[in-house]
């Protein structure tokens, strides 16, 4: 075992607060973590960066005793430990604040702090608990109102209660999962101040995030996970957002050119099928989730959309498929402006949509496979005629889709939720490809699939391209994007950064765009 070298400014021989050695966590069919080594030193804020599904949360659940690792060891202050439960972990000084708060809403702040705490006085009046809470709150510098009910507090205040709950139990290592997701910018700054104060007392913080600017601002060191493995640990001072983004999505990319068209394939059309003109979307909170996006979709072309998740990809998908109304701008289908968002209208115009969360938004889990396969075509003959629904025609269609998707189905009347996730995904993809005569919008179609299934899925996309369909391929996997796309656009903070030709695109440029920097020496070959 290699000894960790102490960072500068620390007495030699000081052990890290937390050391992970070769951690592996396996779920049926999925490797969530493998060979993960991590050192967290006293007095540091350590950021854990990675895409959705990179294994950040799983790793932290292993550290806090929610999951048991299959391999590897957890070393605390130089001694090996194993935690059977989160209670064991907090006794050893490791506390976690989850993304979704675990507070009792009907209880007061003081009651929540004392809940399940073995140091709570046996007989405690509200006054005693509130006095204790006030003392704790002042000691750690997180102001709270001890007598307020949790349901009356803002998200930021609730988070402070969660943190105090952990700190009151003498945590020396605080783990925070996406702490800023629910906070306003001011609350974020308050949190960061408090975390720095906590660090100054010789404690450590692990902060899970995929927001690059925040990682740059708050962390001392950053470890990047990709597909369950650690890619590396870096001193934040030596990093920049572009480099972090590029490392996060992949460096050792195997380039395979899937752009070559077979004989007889449709060429890239000269007039666009769908056009977005300065489209913006503003959500309920008043945040601009899509800003001034202009885009042309041509038949026979695959447009890849790269970017760190949560930068407007979901909104772009929904605008392109009629699920979300735009706040301003214009959408043109075949040159004609679309009056209002209507998914049925887009579907009958030949726009297919493989959504990000298939089970939640594209399937009715409790209904039969047949009913689910008819979802896109029940209006049209042969299934729909004169307002009727032809069940026999629907099962014929379901059989056809299942055969193309190569999914073996014993009984089409059984609920679709009885199928495996991979099979559900294949069926949805095939169903959408059937109606995608003009455009297919595929959001993360390869997520959660094994390598063979990913290749099949990418094959579907290139087949559609060869038939003259405009394909929008949204993914967080740069390798897949570079291999099949003709052009690649990068999303950042709701904006569509430059759209570049995939052929000669280099990772550094894309990384820079993902970090929000427009490269000044961009090749003029970029489309648009």
């Amino acid at each position, binding site marked *: 075992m290699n000894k960790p070298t102490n960072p500068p400014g620390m007495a030699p021989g000081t052990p890290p607060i937390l050391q992970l050695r070769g951690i592996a966590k396996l779920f049926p069919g999925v490797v969530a973590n493998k060979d993960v080594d991590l050192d967290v030193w006293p007095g540091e804020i350590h950021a854990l960066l990675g895409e959705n599904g990179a294994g950040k949360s799983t790793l932290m659940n292993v550290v806090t005793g929610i999951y048991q690792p299959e391999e590897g060891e957890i070393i605390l202050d130089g001694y090996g430990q194993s935690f059977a439960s989160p209670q064991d972990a907090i006794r050893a000084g490791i506390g976690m604040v989850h993304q979704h708060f675990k507070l009792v809403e009907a209880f007061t702040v003081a009651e929540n702090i004392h809940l399940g705490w073995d140091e709570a006085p046996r007989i405690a009046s509200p006054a005693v608990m509130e006095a204790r809470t006030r003392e704790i709150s002042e000691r750690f510098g997180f102001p709270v109102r001890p007598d307020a009910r949790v349901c009356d507090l803002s998200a930021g205040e609730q988070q402070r209660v969660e943190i105090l709950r952990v700190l009151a139990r003498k945590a020396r290592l605080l783990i925070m999962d996406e702490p800023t997701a629910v906070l306003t910018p001011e609350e974020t700054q308050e949190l960061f101040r408090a975390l720095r104060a906590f660090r100054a007392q010789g404690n450590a913080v692990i902060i899970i995030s995929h927001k690059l600017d925040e990682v740059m601002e708050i962390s001392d060191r950053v470890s990047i996970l990709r597909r369950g493995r650690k890619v590396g640990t870096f001193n934040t001072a030596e990093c920049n957002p572009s480099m972090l983004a590029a490392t996060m999505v992949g460096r050792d990319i195997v380039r395979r050119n899937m752009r070559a068209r077979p004989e007889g394939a449709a060429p890239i059309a000269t007039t666009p099928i769908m056009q977005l003109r300065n489209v913006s979307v503003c959500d309920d909170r008043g945040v601009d989730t899509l800003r001034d996006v202009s885009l042309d979709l041509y038949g026979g072309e695959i447009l890849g959309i790269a970017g760190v998740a949560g930068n407007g990809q979901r909104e772009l998908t929904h605008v392109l498929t009629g699920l979300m109304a735009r706040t301003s701008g214009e959408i043109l289908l075949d040159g004609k402006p679309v009056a209002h968002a209507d998914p049925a209208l887009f579907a009958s115009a030949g726009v297919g949509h493989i959504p990000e969360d298939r089970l939640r*938004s594209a399937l009715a889990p409790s209904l039969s496979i047949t009913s689910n396969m008819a979802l896109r075509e*029940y209006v049209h003959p042969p299934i729909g005629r004169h307002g009727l629904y032809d*069940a026999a025609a629907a099962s014929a269609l379901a059989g056809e889709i299942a055969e193309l998707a190569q999914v073996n189905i014993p009984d089409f009347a059984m609920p679709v939720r009885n199928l495996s996730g991979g099979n559900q995904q294949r069926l949805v993809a095939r169903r959408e490809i059937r109606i995608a005569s003009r455009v297919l919008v595929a959001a993360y179609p390869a997520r959660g699939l094994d390598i063979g299934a990913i290749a099949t899925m990418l094959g579907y996309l290139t087949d559609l391209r060869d038939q003259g369909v405009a394909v929008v391929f949204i993914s967080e996997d740069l390798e897949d994007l570079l291999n099949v796309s003709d052009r690649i656009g990068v999303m950042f903070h709701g904006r569509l950064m430059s759209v570049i030709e995939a052929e000669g695109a280099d990772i550094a440029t894309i990384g820079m765009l993902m970090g929000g920097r427009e490269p000044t020496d961009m090749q003029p070959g970029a489309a648009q």
Partner: protein
Amino acid sequence: MATRAFQRLPTAPAGRILTLRLVAIIVSLFIIAGVLALAGHSPLMLAQLIVHSTLGSRFGLEDLALFMCPLLLTGAAVTVCGTIGLWNIGAEGQFYAGAIAATGVALGLHGPTLVILPLMTIAGILGGMAWIAVPTLARAYAGVNEIITTLLLNFIASLLTYYLTTGPWRDRISGAQVSTQRISVSIPEMWGIVHWGFPVAILIVIGLALMLSRTRWGYEIRIGGANPEAARYAGIPVRLRIISVMLLSGGLAGLAGMFEVAGTVHRLQGGMANNFGYLGIVVAVLARGSCLNVIPAALLMALILDSGIVMQTQQLSASVILAITGLILFMIAIGDELAHYRPVAKVAAGGKTS
């Protein structure tokens, strides 16, 4: 490896549910017989009496059909609403509203039965729809929980009926208490005291089953109930579908009220809904979301109701009847849950477990 003797299946086969329900009913009958014997009654004599006055005689069968008629319609009302994932707890109130509207037509207009009866039918349906209209709009446009709104309106409808039958519409001819005078038109009888509303109710239930499984509207309702997000994804106007389903549901319960007024009671009476609206919920739960199942479920419920009345004539109190009803439904619920389990074959310990 821990050996478990039983495995829970996500979906229970219909055949197993039916078998276990029969077992549940038989077991509860034995329990009831035991308790009644301890209390000094003769279970055998009671059973004979009940069978004779329900299934065993023409008069009993006629009575059963009269009980089934409103249960079919209120059960269908709750089932249809449940298809889109909503609970209409207000069939009782819509029943009264339909009965009031139909009675209003009968008391206010005079003419041949052929004219008045269709008008009463339309009024009954519209009355039920009107009673569910506010909960419907609140649900569709403001997301207000329909369970509370439909439930609370029941009490208003019931009190309104008491007001009308003791106030402006009270019987001034024969002086009957809490009742209007006998109305002059009635649904013709087809078999003894069974009126034509009974076969019509059966046809309506069958028609609804076909509508839900064989029309575009029915398909959209089913998708909307199973996953509203998928419905929006497919471009189904969920809000409009909610409105149409809830109004249909209210209309069905209102029609039940009209049938009761024009076919069975021949007048509007306070308390005449007789819990048919609430029992419609029980029927719908027994039917497990399927319209066709409403028919046997309504039959079972009618049997229980009818048996209860027979037992009341034998000096058993109304609370005992309620307890018996509860016991049977409770045992059926246990049977439904047990239907999900199947024994794991012993040889399958290491191999296939399907």
